[in-house]
């Protein structure tokens, strides 16, 4: 009887470890996907808009001095 309990505990622990590992690798995949999506041109539309706004405001040859105002 005690042997049965030990075997059951080991099996349960192994299942738990497998589930945790799979979950962690799924998390890594979704984190990476989320990061890549956040860097896509669609997600960066606000940046492009601001770039356009700044370049419209100031012509490239009048963008000020490199080290000062």
């Amino acid at each position, binding site marked *: 009887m005690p042997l049965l309990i030990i075997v059951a505990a080991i099996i349960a622990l192994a299942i738990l470890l497998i589930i945790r590992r799979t979950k962690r690798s799924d998390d890594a995949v979704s984190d990476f996907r989320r990061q890549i999506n956040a*860097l896509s041109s669609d*997600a960066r539309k*606000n940046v492009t808009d601001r770039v356009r706004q700044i*370049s419209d405001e100031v012509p490239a040859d009048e963008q000020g*001095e*490199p080290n*000062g105002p």
Partner: protein
Amino acid sequence: MARDLAIDLGTANTLVYMKGKGIVLNEPSVIALNRQTGEVLATGREAWQMIGRTPGYIVAVRPLRGGAITDFEITERMIRLLLQRVGVSRFTRPKVVICVPSAITEVERRAVTDAARRAGAADANLIEQPMAAAIGADLPIDEPVGNMVIDIGGGTSETAVISLGGIVALEAVRVGSFDIDAAIQNHIRREHGIAIGERTAEEIKIAIGSAAETVDEATAEVRGRDLMSGLPKTVVLTPEEIRDAIEDPVSSIVASVVRCLAKAPPELSQDFLVRGMYLVGGGGLLRGLAARIERETEVPVRMSNVPLEAVVLGAGHVIEHYDALKGMFMGVRR
């Protein structure tokens, strides 16, 4: 509730991006102090105008050199004042993302984050400048293609190859546009025997400085103090002599670009021939620099539409998508 901020803490200029608002501050990284009492007298543009023109009891300094904090206490005070100017108070503590050169040491990293936290930030994270620049320059860094960005700042020049949201190859040198100004100052002192200030050296660089021969070159008159007589003196400078004078820092920058190209994996190298490299940062505005890099690498060089703001706009994008992009912070395991 404080709005989160992205800060481009540059050797030359500091830019602040506020979440949902855009760039709210763009000032020189200069602070003027009373030497006797230690009180801050001015920051930013006002302090910049004082450089080299102060009475004995005032000192106008740049607390960052080569992209690193040279005076921790003064930097902290400067950051605190800048944050106060954009509305950060004791009760509104924002999350802050700060752009720093990728080659800074662990100690320098800690100095920057500590300075920001003490200045009022609830949490401070760092992001590499070339990565932020690539985001701000709107390069397709989410795709599996080679994107190359050259960021030439006041104290550092960094070249990075970026693909799939990460840095593949990187080369950084602590040489920037301030070294070009210093080379001009030294040349005029040595060859013409007159002393000029760093602001005058910068004006000469902007007026006639170039990294390669350009069309419609003109001479420039410069006034300084004669080292022998101590009297004011005027000399005429030619673009060729300035080009020779700044050859050392310029060639160091170009050589670092070449080294980065050599580090890039071959699969990505072929992309550069088609897509080119992108030049950002104030130092990139030096006349003929893009042509010089293009000539020595045989890779097309394109100038970003917003060379001075690309880094802070990129960091601003990170602050707008904080949770999705927090894996890009320096020191975070990827």
